């Protein structure tokens, strides 16, 4: 597999320029720059809020200095609360070229778009000179989420991802699973896999936090449709999501923006700390994908039963369809048909191997289905987090 070596020593599998709006008021101008560039590797990202938010700043910094990203153009209206100089400074310090355009000082929409296109052209020239480098599996960070789950997700696509994760963790990759709200009921089983007793306590606490948070928001996580699809209990539904994590020892717990310190299996805690303040922990699947990317994910494995068409900016998404009927309905949007397990034509282990081989191909440059279709979704909203405690990344297990 061949990737790109960044000046900070990290290696990416794509060579992306991000065009980032720092407030919704700059969104249209940023989008015009991306669309007018006509270039596949120019991706639109951004944060809509005018009020500053530490979490949003941290995620924007993490994704703008992601190994798949080679340079950035920042679009500011001029008066928003986002600390644009701080972000630009961090991107520059990572060795990546960055240009900031302030619309209020650039002559307006047309003029800023023209300047933005010039900035993109300059960055493309720099990126063309980025050194290529061999990238090994143990240098990859792979995330997984499920979206549009149904009764088949936990018996086909999710266990298949679990098999793939086991193999990748054994070979030294960093693998990240998440959705603590859908791990309710699995906390004891999960805690037994923790590398240390102190980490076990942190894992349990993260799920208990999610249970409290969802309870305050009044969000039920077991719908009648789950029972129609063969799921009987909350813990069964949670296990369906949980089995994406495979059987490996759990090396640590991350929060959005934390980077795994080495290979191993990590839980990403996406539920905010403190009293519920800004609404639901994750308002859509892409919010979770962005958080995985903020933790360095080069590729996201997305399992779906009901069907989803999304991809992502910055890091490719591999879609694994759990339900054979859904696969027949949306064949043009799926990378892998795990539903054939239900029809006796494959097994979770064999589909896991298929996913593993596809991860290698995608890491080597092969486009995923959503990538080829131009899906570049990105969403980031307000949240609040406390930093992780020392027990979350036990020093003894760092790779």
């Amino acid at each position, binding site marked *: 597999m061949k990737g790109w070596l960044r000046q900070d020593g990290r290696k990416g599998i794509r060579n992306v320029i991000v065009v980032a709006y720092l407030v919704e008021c700059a969104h249209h101008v940023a989008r015009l720059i991306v669309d007018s560039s006509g270039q596949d590797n120019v991706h639109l990202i951004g944060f809509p809020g005018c009020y500053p938010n530490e979490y949003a700043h941290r995620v924007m910094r993490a994704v703008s200095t992601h190994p798949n990203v080679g340079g950035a153009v920042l679009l500011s209206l001029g008066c928003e609360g986002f600390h644009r100089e701080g972000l630009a400074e961090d991107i520059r310090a990572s060795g990546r070229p960055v240009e900031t355009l302030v619309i209020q000082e650039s002559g307006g929409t047309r003029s800023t778009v023209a300047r933005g296109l010039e900035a993109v052209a300059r960055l493309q020239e720099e990126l063309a000179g980025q050194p290529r480098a061999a990238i090994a599996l143990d240098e990859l960070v792979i995330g997984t989420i499920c979206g549009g789950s149904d009764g088949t997700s936990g*018996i086909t696509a999710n266990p298949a991802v679990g098999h793939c994760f086991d193999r990748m963790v054994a070979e030294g990759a960093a693998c990240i699973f998440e959705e603590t709200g859908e791990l309710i009921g699995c906390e004891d089983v999960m805690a037994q896999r923790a590398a240390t007793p102190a980490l076990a306590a942190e894992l349990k606490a993260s799920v208990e936090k999610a249970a409290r948070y969802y309870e305050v928001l009044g969000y039920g996580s077991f719908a009648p449709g789950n029972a129609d699809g063969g799921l009987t209990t909350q813990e069964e539904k949670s296990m369906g999501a949980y089995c994406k994590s495979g059987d490996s020892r759990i090396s640590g717990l991350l929060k959005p923006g934390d980077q795994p310190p080495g290979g191993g299996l990590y839980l990403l805690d996406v539920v905010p700390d403190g009293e519920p303040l800004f609404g639901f922990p994750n308002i859509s699947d892409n919010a979770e994908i962005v958080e995985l990317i903020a933790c360095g994910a080069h590729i996201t494995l997305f399992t779906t039963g009901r069907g989803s068409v999304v991809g992502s900016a910055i890091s490719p998404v591999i879609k694994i369809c759990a339900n054979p009927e859904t696969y027949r309905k949306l064949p043009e949007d799926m990378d892998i048909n795990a539903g054939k397990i239900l029809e006796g034509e494959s097994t979770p282990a064999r589909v896991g191997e298929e996913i593993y081989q596809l991860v290698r191909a995608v890491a080597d440059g092969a486009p995923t289905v959503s990538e080829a279709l131009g899906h570049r979704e990105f969403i980031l909203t307000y949240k609040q987090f406390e930093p992780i405690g020392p027990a979350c990344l036990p020093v003894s297990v760092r790779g």
Partner: protein
Amino acid sequence: MDKRILLLHPSDNVYVVCQSFTGRERIAAAEGEILIPGPVDVGHKVARRAIDDGEPVIKYGVPIGSATRALVAGEHVHLHNMRSDYIASHARGGRV
């Protein structure tokens, strides 16, 4: 083993149904034949072996609840004969 049932983990005491059973049928399972007493839909569970009243139902290698009566091999395992062992307040969206 009949391809219409799937064993997810070696320690499971239930199989997952991959293709619907439309009626009473005797099928080959990992440890010999079991009787499927009636229709069971895709995604649902049938008992791999006899399960005692109160015994944990094991799927994915972990307990997903407990039997609320004694079950025989092949029996459909669902809301009518098992329940959650978890705190009910987390399942408010649907009474199970």
